[in-house]
């Protein structure tokens, strides 16, 4: 059953991740300010906590699933190189890399 969960794609591209972080930080901060002011007004700290929890739930819904708006800038990968000539090029490159590390 776990493999079924793992096969669901959950990734976002980089601009999408930045947007998701901005969204959840904004939603939680706004709900914190609203909650603080309302709790101060009715003099019950419980309301502040409830409004914060509501903000947390809303931002969970907005940012945890990989909505399409977070996938609008996918990375442009290089086209795959066929393997036969690729191996010959790889080996001298690897040996060059080892020399650089030392």
């Amino acid at each position: 059953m776990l493999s079924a969960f793992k096969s669901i794609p959950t990734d976002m591209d980089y601009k999408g991740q930045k947007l998701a972080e901005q969204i959840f930080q904004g939603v939680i901060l706004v709900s914190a300010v609203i909650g603080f002011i309302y709790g101060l007004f009715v003099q019950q700290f419980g309301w502040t906590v409830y409004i914060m929890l509501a903000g947390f739930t809303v931002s969970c819904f907005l940012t945890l699933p990989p909505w399409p708006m977070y996938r609008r800038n996918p990375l442009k990968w290089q086209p795959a190189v066929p393997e036969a000539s690729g191996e010959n090029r790889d080996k001298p490159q690897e040996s060059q890399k080892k020399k650089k590390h030392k």
Partner: protein
Amino acid sequence: MNTVLSRANSLFAFSLSVMAALTFGCFITTAFKDRSVPVDIQVSKVMIKNVDDFTGPRERSDLGFVTFDISANLQPIFDWNVKELFLYLTAEYSTKSNALNQVVLWDKIVLRGDNTKLNMKDVKSKYFFFDDGNGLRANKNITLTLSWNVVPNAGILPLVMGSGHKSLTFPETYETIKSY
């Protein structure tokens, strides 16, 4: 932030930090408030006995019996940072052997949401009013005060004394009742 768990971790940690800041804000809005209200204490009956005190070093000690009325309006103390109040009635006096004695006679817990108008009549003391010796007989000045400990949601627990006290004297002989 590429996986759901990583986003969930980041979101949850941020929410906790914001919640901690809000709790600090709640503390700051009520940190410098004066939590004292006027209190009215009346005493109806006072009696004294001289009995065996097994907890003390001597054979017999004075045991006082006080019946009192308390009335106070505690509503101004409760704000969004107060969870409950722990009230206690203290008798303070001095004797020949001890300069300062303080004895707690009665206490009560008032939770937020309970009735905040305190109007108790003919209350007997909850705890024994033993003296360290025989200093209660004919003692001219015993002062009763009501104090409370404010238990907050966040912050310091201050001990506040209510304004208003009652002085009483104990009778000269044992087991005679003095009415006020």
